[in-house]
């Protein structure tokens, strides 16, 4: 087994990997940019290497500096996390050339699945159903021909990447040209490739993905599905396992699982990976893309299957055989995950980095929290706004939902804005409770939602707390009031009020 593993990442996923490494008695090496010197992954790791200034292009995306750090610290292997270099075939190749194990699939598999159109071709060849679309980058002419043939709406997508970048919905022919131009330029900025392809847009479809795990000896199993239909700006914000749709139609798990395994096998895949599908309202599923890495939302699969995917990734990278067969995988209960972001849901979800001045976390039965924050940490403005992933497990989806609402109420983060309150509104929404999920859910939710009505007396207590706080902390606006009022009896209380 490896003696030391470098994590080529930051934030919650670096912390997540460090935890499993520690449980396996493997030393961990964190890497960090200037603004991450006091980030939790650096504090928690056994070793730490500085790899450059804030911009990712000068640190977390620098293959040379990361490999140099790995050599200097004597790491046997590198875990790439998600994002950054995790789906960069050249990085995977460079690791292997340097004699350092890349904890993930082969560079060749990443190449076969990294281009979205190449992945489509691989999936088609493996017999997986795909959404009608083009298997190569489009020009304006081929785009127009496709849209005329298949009808609107259509969805433009970047050939080179995901995460919503370079994605555009087009509802009519008049918008095609400008949408292609915008998408192409956004894709160029995000992935250094302007190539765009097109698919028919399936309205009110569900995003359901299959977690795969394969060893280097040709064995592969699926670990069931995750439903990630709750998305904002084409990015997942709530994920669950099992999918409520598949819980009603359990035969779909095996069908989609087998389709995913066929597509991955066609790419010679091993280690952990995920095949994403769209499922239409007639429960037909279509291959969307494959992510050749661990996913953000892997904890819901871990909670329901009882497996530690990071441990399995490491063992597989070390050459181990899968320790189970398909029929030994069991799913128990239901898990839901919310992605807690530093953003302001009351101001168009704009990012809101800054210093965390107060932090209370949910605890107790069925709670799992993977995060990278601590009280006093300044959330840097250079990176993703993901602060933590709050996941819950319970015996049923309904119990998991009420548990998540309970947990969100216990969770308090001061000093910055977060989307905690937004999640509570979604989880209390009758459509969510009824599991009527689809990728347009949040847009419709914004149209039907009523502002939440606080219970009586909450405004009274808020006013009282604000008045007492003003009297004690004397911000400028209230100074005059204090000067004319009599002084508080502060004896015995000052100590509590730093």
């Amino acid at each position: 087994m490896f003696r030391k593993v470098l994590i080529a990442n930051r934030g919650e996923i670096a912390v997540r990997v460090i935890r499993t490494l520690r449980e396996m008695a493997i030393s961990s090496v964190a890497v960090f940019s200037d603004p991450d010197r006091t980030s939790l992954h650096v504090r928690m790791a056994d070793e730490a290497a500085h790899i450059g200034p804030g911009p990712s292009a000068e640190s977390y995306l620098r293959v040379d500096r990361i490999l140099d750090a790995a050599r200097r610290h004597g790491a046997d292997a590198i875990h790439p996390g998600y994002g950054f270099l995790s789906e960069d075939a050249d990085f995977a190749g460079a690791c292997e050339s340097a004699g350092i194990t890349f904890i993930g699939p082969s560079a060749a598999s990443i190449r076969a699945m990294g281009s979205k159109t190449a992945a489509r071709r691989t999936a088609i060849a493996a017999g997986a159903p795909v959404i009608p679309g083009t298997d190569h980058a489009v020009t304006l002419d081929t785009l127009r021909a496709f849209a005329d043939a298949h009808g609107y709406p259509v969805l433009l997508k970047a050939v080179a990447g995901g995460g919503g970048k370079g994605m555009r919905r087009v509802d009519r022919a008049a918008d095609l040209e400008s949408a292609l131009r915008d998408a192409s330029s956004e894709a160029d900025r995000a992935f250094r490739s302007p190539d765009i392809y097109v698919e028919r847009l399936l309205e009110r479809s569900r995003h359901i993905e299959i977690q795969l795990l394969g060893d280097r000896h040709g064995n592969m199993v699926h670990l069931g599905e995750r439903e990630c239909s709750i998305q904002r700006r084409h990015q997942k914000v709530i994920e669950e396992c099992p999918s409520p749709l598949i819980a009603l139609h359990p035969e779909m798990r095996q069908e989609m699982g087998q389709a995913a395994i066929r597509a991955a096998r066609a790419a010679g895949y091993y280690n952990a990976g995920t095949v994403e599908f769209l499922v239409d309202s007639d429960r037909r599923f279509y291959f969307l893309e494959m992510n050749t890495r661990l996913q953000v939302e892997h904890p819901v699969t871990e909670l329901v299957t009882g497996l530690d995917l990071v441990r399995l990734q490491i063992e597989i990278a070390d050459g181990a055989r899968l320790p189970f067969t398909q029929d030994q995988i069991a799913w128990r209960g239901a898990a839901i995950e919310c992605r807690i972001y530093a953003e302001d849901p009351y101001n168009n979800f704009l990012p809101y980095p800054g210093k965390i001045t107060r932090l209370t976390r949910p605890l107790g039965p069925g709670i799992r929290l993977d995060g990278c924050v601590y009280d006093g940490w300044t959330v840097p403005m250079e990176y993703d706004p993901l602060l933590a992933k709050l996941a819950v497990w319970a015996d049923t989806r309904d119990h998991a939902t009420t548990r998540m609402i309970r947990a969100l109420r216990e969770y308090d983060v001061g000093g910055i804005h977060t989307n905690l309150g937004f999640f509570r509104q979604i989880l209390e929404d009758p459509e969510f409770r009824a599991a009527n999920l689809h990728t347009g859910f949040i847009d419709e939710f914004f149209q039907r939602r009523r502002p939440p009505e606080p219970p009586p007396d909450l405004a009274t207590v808020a006013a009282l707390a604000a008045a007492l706080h003003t009297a004690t902390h004397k911000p400028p606006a209230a100074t005059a009031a204090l000067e004319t009022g009599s002084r508080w009896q502060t004896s015995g209380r000052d100590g509590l009020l730093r």
Partner: protein
Amino acid sequence: MKLALTIDGREDTIEILSRPGGHSPACRFQLGDTPAREANVETPEPGVYSVLLDGRSYDAFVEDTPTGMVVTIEGYRFEIEARDPRRWSRKTSGAGADTVQSILSPMPGKVVRVLVAAGDPVVPGQGIVVVEAMKMQNELKSNRTGLVLTVPAKEGATVTAGELLATLE
């Protein structure tokens, strides 16, 4: 002590008739002209107020913001401004409020591009400044035809939420 309050945009007053402190956590207060009430208030953590009112228990988290306070209770959030009722309302922001557009940063971040200079003519929708945080760029636009008055924003500078980036007239 009496304070004028703006709670989520609604005006009210609160008078603290007797304050918690020393050995007694009892606090009498009067909201507007409703009857006076008594609460039991402790401060278990800085900025956290544990309030027992009519047998119910509330944990209120209070945070100072540039314009007042945000109070969070049971996950509900209240924006509150408190001031001496005898002072002039802070709402009166002086002359020129209608004739000048202030471009404020909508989030903490970094100024990545300044697209105009003082004296430039602008048209509605024209980009003025681009602020970036956490990989998201935000282009702030003019809402009028007019001239750029001032541009305090500097490329590469770090700004807080609500910080003035430019003024237009």
